[in-house]
């Protein structure tokens, strides 16, 4: 009993490890997506669905362990909410991959550069999210990490405006191609928003016990 109280129970350790693993998978999925986009290779997108399935099962594990009583009650709902926000990033990655896969052609040269740049920034943001989560154990400043995430998000916003301007100038020859392209850009550019939401939620978690 005292071991549990003094050093934190196994359940708490497992939840922490699972959350880390969940974010690591997000980083892996973001990397996989970026590579597929940079190489214009739709075959590589299959890894996203596999990683999303793995992340989904980890998310379920985390939620069940938290509701079995891991951590103080004040922390439980916030941790679950954080994991659900990260899950939202997986959904957007999956949607973007799905739309990219169903584009009948590869990305046009005018916009592919911006798309790869956004995917690259999403990858860096997911890495920063993991580092930000790890600051909850040590003395490093969480605000620095969340600030870096916010800066990346602002950069993605700027690229998004250029991208939308270029897209609006393009002629839409086919409804489904237009829709898929629009869905793809929409999902791709929303990923950074949701990662920023997740990092903001880490700040809330960090102050919730104080």
């Amino acid at each position, binding site marked *: 009993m005292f071991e549990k*109280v003094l050093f*934190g129970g196994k359940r708490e350790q497992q939840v922490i490890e699972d959350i880390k693993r969940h974010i690591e998978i997000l980083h892996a999925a973001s990397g996989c997506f970026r590579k597929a986009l940079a190489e214009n290779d739709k075959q590589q997108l299959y890894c996203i669905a596999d990683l999303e399935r793995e992340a989904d099962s980890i998310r379920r594990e985390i939620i069940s362990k938290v509701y079995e009583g*891991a951590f103080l*009650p004040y922390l439980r709902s916030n941790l679950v909410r954080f994991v659900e926000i990260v899950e939202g990033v997986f959904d957007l990655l999956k949607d973007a991959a799905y739309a990219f896969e169903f584009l009948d052609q590869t990305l046009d040269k005018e916009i592919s550069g911006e798309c790869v740049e956004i995917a690259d920034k999403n990858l860096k943001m997911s890495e920063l999210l993991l580092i930000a989560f790890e600051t909850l154990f040590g003395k490093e400043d969480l605000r620095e990490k969340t600030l870096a995430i916010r800066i990346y998000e602002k950069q993605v916003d700027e690229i998004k405006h250029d991208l939308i301007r270029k897209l609006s100038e393009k002629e839409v020859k086919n409804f489904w191609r237009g829709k898929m392209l629009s869905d793809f850009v929409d999902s791709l550019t929303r990923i950074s928003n949701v990662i920023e939401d997740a990092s903001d939620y880490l700040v809330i978690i960090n102050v919730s016990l104080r």
Partner: protein
Amino acid sequence: MTELIPLAACILIAFGIGSNDTSNALGICIGCGVIRLQKALLLFGCFVLLGIMIQGQRVMETVGKDLLEVNVPIMSTALSISALLIIVSNWKRLPLSTHQVIIGSLIGAGVSSGAEVSYRALIEIVISWVVSPLAAFATALAIYKAMEMTISRLALFPLEKVLRILLLLSGILISYNTGANELATIVGPVIHAGMIARTPASLAGSLFVFLGAVLLSKRVIETIGKGITTLDPYSGFAAQFGAGVCVLFFTSLGMPISTTYCIIGGISGVGMSKGIKTVRMGLVRKIIANWFLAPTLAFLGSALIMRLIS
């Protein structure tokens, strides 16, 4: 045969303490999942016994010897009225303090039967009733400020672990005080009337508190536990530990004081650190009214019954 009346009343009151006050001590820990119910009950029982065995003597002397010379008729009346008032207050959900009811009943029965009451001891007790919630207020506020300057700077997960340990320590302290102060107030008169020796009285008292906790505390704890999910454990610890330290201090002076009133003082102290508007003054007025009501009712009830018996 009449000697059985105060003993039976003591058993009833001890049983009542077990059923109601376990939540005071370990409700937060159970609600937060720091400790499971069965382990909490065992821990509560052990520390109640330790409290009365190690530090119960002073409070027993104050209530059973210094306040007035107790005899069987005084105790039969006072403890029966106390048991009745405590049962009715629990049933009607009126938060009456066990200490105030017992002291009020003893004084009522003593004055009515012409026994010599030490007004000096009574004044000291009443002063401690006034000072203890205020001291708990100040202690909790100081603990809260100290926590802000120390453990608040820890990273989140280490802070969570520290809070778990502190919550358990605080629960243990309140359990200890329940034995050293609350149970000592109940068994003090019967011990000093020579009806039962100190060690068997302490063992039996602790046993009945434990039985009350095992048989009847679960629902109260569940209610507290559900309420605790929205309670901030950080402030909760400062309030509870501040109250615990305060009760321990008054116990060492031999003063029978209410843990509940000290916890209320502690909560108000923590609330005050966030501004006076966070303290619900309507509720404070109600608590002050009960503070006067409990000893007055007990005094009048005991005095009346004693007069009728005489």
